[in-house]
């Protein structure tokens, strides 16, 4: 014969049908025999039903997880779309390696030092090209003679 406290300790397992047949029968007998204890158990069950009632809308079960049971609540229907935020965070934290545009992907793949060196080289080449163009003498007009030496 179970004491009242022992029965209370078994409320969860009894509700979830996790007890052995003998134990299950013992709890049932105790509840049948004790009206106050039965009311406590009923209140316990109503509390769990209240948890279930928190469900707002049902949806497909999570892949890889067992399907919802009758007392299970479902998910809120107004779950936000997380994808954009996840993509932005991944892009930022990966330095553009993931979910970036062309430039940020390049920046993500190449080390920053290498990228800086390439930019410097490009600047030097551009500067050198501009310098060469500006220092080259203008071509002489057609038919012109070389200036004579001073007498």
């Amino acid at each position, binding site marked *: 014969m179970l004491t009242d406290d022992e029965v209370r300790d078994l409320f*969860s397992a009894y509700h979830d049908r996790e007890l052995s047949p003998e134990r299950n029968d013992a709890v049932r007998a105790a509840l049948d025999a004790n009206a106050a204890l039965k009311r406590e158990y009923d209140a316990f069950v*109503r509390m769990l039903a209240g948890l279930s009632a928190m469900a707002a809308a049902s949806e497909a079960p999570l892949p890889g997880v067992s399907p919802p049971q009758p007392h299970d609540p479902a998910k809120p229907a107004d779950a936000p779309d997380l994808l954009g935020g996840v993509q932005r965070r991944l892009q930022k934290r990966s330095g553009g390696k993931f979910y970036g545009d062309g430039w940020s992907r390049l920046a993500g793949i190449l080390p920053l030092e290498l990228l800086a060196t390439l930019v410097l080289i490009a600047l030097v080449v551009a500067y050198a090209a501009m310098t060469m163009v500006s220092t080259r003498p203008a071509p002489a007009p057609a038919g012109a003679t070389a200036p004579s030496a001073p007498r």
Partner: protein
Amino acid sequence: MTLDLEAEQALVVRLKRRDEAAFNLFVRAYQAKVFSLVQRMLGNRAEAEDLAQEVFITVFRSIDSFRGDSRLGTWLYRVAINHCKNRIKYLDRRVTRGHDALDEEGGKALTEGGPVMSRPDRPDEAMHGTEMGGVIERALGLLEEEHRALVVLRDLEGLSYEEIMTITGLPEGTVKSRLHRARAALREAIERGLGYKLPE
């Protein structure tokens, strides 16, 4: 969206290659479940949205550690629950510091008594009233994170004991006994919130 085992394995292979299209598919498939779980654990929509995104980022980064011992969804729950526990601890510390500051400024009275829960006019209808959902939600927030996780996983998410064992890493007997204690604690919290014993 439900993936069978074969499709899931193919998805995992693509995720491990950091295939962005596959990751997009993965996020879309699981985001509602993850958000729901996190929101129930944290009780705050803005925090939940932020943390749910972090869960997916963790998956993107650490999918290589998924060995396939469990289903992908179960593993994802594990990642989410661990994130939730850490965030709850962080938020608790922040709240505690905030309370300390209030106490120093003589604002202790503002923080005493815990969450305010109004008593329904008809106690006998409390369990069926729409108010009860709010009372339970607030009571859930009063549970320690381990208890909260078990109640959420079992009674709100409807997971099996086996799945909860995988997610929490606890043996079966421990899951059962802690779940019982968690439910008892929840009942106490609800009764404290209502200010009277649950209707019998």
